[in-house]
């Protein structure tokens, strides 16, 4: 047995011992990468039955509203437009097909790994109107901010962003305020916390009395986070603890925050199948409004229509597990996804289907 395996066994033993003595515990992992890591590492199969892990609204693709996807598809349909997007987005079905289908029909859709690659694309292709799909949480927002600043500095008139960024804390607050899911504690996202810092979770702990533990992604790190959480629940404590201190500090990354604040301001945002959550999104400030694709092309996002029967909205709030959705695994598969949770590699439904079905 390797050193890592010994450590993992020990951590699982400790978690089991606490769970044995405790009432059933329900933890939410807010981050899609955690969801996938828990499945991919096989940890989910090793935890005691009385410990439930539910996935939260932490997959950037899954929380993106249908209205947003429809706008992206509408723009992709214009001859002069090139859509630059993170890979996960291309297969998400809108009301009239996905970007992938549009690309097959001749639309210009380019997969990029960062917002700045989209700027570089715009520089290289001055004849194209380049629209970057700016989605993701606090992790990708600084990169979008940097790209917009770069576009402004380069005086680009062919680069735009379709604002769709989301903020994690307001969504957690909404879930707790709604009170429909009995969450005992949060496994807080490692990457997002690198930017926002441990302090950002203070309101969750103080206002709602729910433990928050920032957790890394390796199997050992995941288990350390879970152990700290079950301990807090068993001891009836609610604190912010940091099990990912190699990367996350108390204050986060102030520089990244400054960049976000320079370019964006917090505004209400529509979350898929949840609806509008106040102060949970980012809009471009007036001095950067020229880069707003909605403004430039004069379009309004339509309503967030959810395909009939799709439970993605319930899944991302932890109200339902994927197999509870009637479409799961039959009408909705990774080959023919109905909802975004089946599309994204970070999506809860895709993870269940891939690793557990």
């Amino acid at each position, binding site marked *: 047995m*390797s050193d*890592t*395996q010994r450590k*993992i*066994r020990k951590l699982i033993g400790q978690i089991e011992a606490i769970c044995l003595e405790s009432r059933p515990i329900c933890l939410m992992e807010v981050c*899609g*990468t955690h969801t*996938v890591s828990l*499945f*991919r*590492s*096989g*940890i*989910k*199969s*090793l935890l005691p039955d009385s410990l439930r892990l539910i996935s939260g609204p932490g997959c*950037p*693709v899954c929380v993106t509203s249908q209205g947003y996807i429809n706008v992206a598809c509408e723009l992709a349909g214009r001859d002069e437009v090139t859509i*630059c997007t*993170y*890979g*996960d*987005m*291309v*297969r998400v079905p809108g009301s009239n097909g996905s970007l992938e289908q549009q690309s097959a029909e001749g639309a210009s859709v*380019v*997969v*990029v*790994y960062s917002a700045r*690659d*989209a700027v570089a*694309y715009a520089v290289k292709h001055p004849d194209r109107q380049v629209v970057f799909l700016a*989605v*993701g*949480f606090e*992790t*990708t927002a600084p990169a979008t901010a940097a790209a917009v600043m770069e576009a402004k500095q380069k005086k680009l008139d062919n680069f735009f962003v379709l604002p769709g960024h989301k903020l994690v804390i307001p969504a957690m607050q909404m879930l707790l305020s709604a009170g429909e899911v009995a969450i005992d504690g949060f496994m807080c996202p490692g*990457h*997002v916390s690198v930017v926002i810092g441990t302090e950002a979770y203070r309101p969750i702990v103080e206002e709602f009395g729910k433990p928050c533990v920032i957790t890394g*992604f390796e*199997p050992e790190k995941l*288990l350390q986070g879970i152990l700290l959480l079950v301990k807090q629940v068993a001891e009836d404590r609610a604190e912010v603890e940091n099990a990912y201190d190699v990367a996350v500090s108390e204050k986060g990354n102030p520089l990244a925050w400054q960049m976000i604040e320079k370019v964006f301001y917090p505004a209400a945002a529509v979350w898929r199948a949840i609806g509008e959550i106040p102060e949970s999104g980012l809009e471009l400030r007036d001095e950067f409004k020229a880069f707003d694709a909605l403004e430039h092309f004069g379009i309004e996002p339509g309503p967030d229509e959810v395909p009939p029967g799709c439970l993605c909205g319930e899944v991302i709030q932890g109200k339902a597990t994927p197999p509870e959705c009637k479409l799961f695994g039959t009408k909705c*598969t*990774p*080959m023919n996804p109905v909802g975004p949770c089946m599309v*994204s*590699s*970070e999506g809860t439904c895709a993870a269940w289907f*891939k*690793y*557990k*079905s």
Partner: protein
Amino acid sequence: MAHGGGGELTRQLLAERIIPRLSNELLNPLMDSAVFDVEPGRLCMTTDGFVVDPLEFPGGDIGRLAVCGTVNDLAVMAADPKVLSLALVLEEGLEIELLDRVIGSIAEAARQAGVVIGTGDTKVVEGRGSGGGMTITTAGVGRLKDGMRLDPGRIVAGDVIIVTGNIAEHGLAVMSARDGLAFETKLLSDVAPLNGLVNRICESGADIKFMRDPTRSGVAGVMADLVEDVGLSIELEEDALPVSAIARHTAELLGLDVLTVANEGKIVVVVSQADADKVVAACRADELGRDGAIIGRFTDAQPGLVELITTAGGRRLVQRPYGEDLPRIC
């Protein structure tokens, strides 16, 4: 480049840029077909079309890929590749220097594999989009080795799965060079002709039941195919998978599973438990197989599934990827 129509310009392109680099006695007469002798025995034939974006990537290019892909498809059937055909479809606007490099790679890969380009065709077409691309189709003929009995139908529970080296390097290297996704990495594609390695494996004395090169859908794709064909289950061990640290980290960064990423220089081999060590030893004696390892085995668990026993000691399913794997957002 603007060499359409098959007239003088195309002839000049062939005469100056292509033929001299690929020169051999089958090709040189420039007749409509290649003529060659065959030894008595059974022949094996395959063909494959190659498209890759970008055309050049760390560790290789479309030319090397087109030769190795066809050589390997013959090799894993236990055939000795002899002659390849080469059909080039070049888009107007293709840089002539790029074409030169690709032809150079074809010549080099053919030399390495010990095959000749016996016949070929070149067309120049109008480009799609900004143009400047190319596609290559190769076909290959080889003679089946005597005494081999490759047949997945012979696989039974307890048989062992071996992979001949570090996985996922081709797919990750290509992705690292893709427009818009470009990232700095020391990863190189593993694209290589595997007939030499196959010779060693076949000569190891092991009774080989199955070989396949895990290309587009990675090791996961081959495993899924086998489970469906054979009706048994497969248990893979995460700790046993040969993966370089750099490939593992790159895959993690992109949110990809190393099992579903393409390889162009690896073979999956199935043998009985008793023969496994012979194959691993044969692999490791070859430069292209030095990281070869046993990665799992067949079981009679039903229904037939591919499962991975993880480092953490848990279990999870392994499925073939759905279309092209897409890098995640954050």
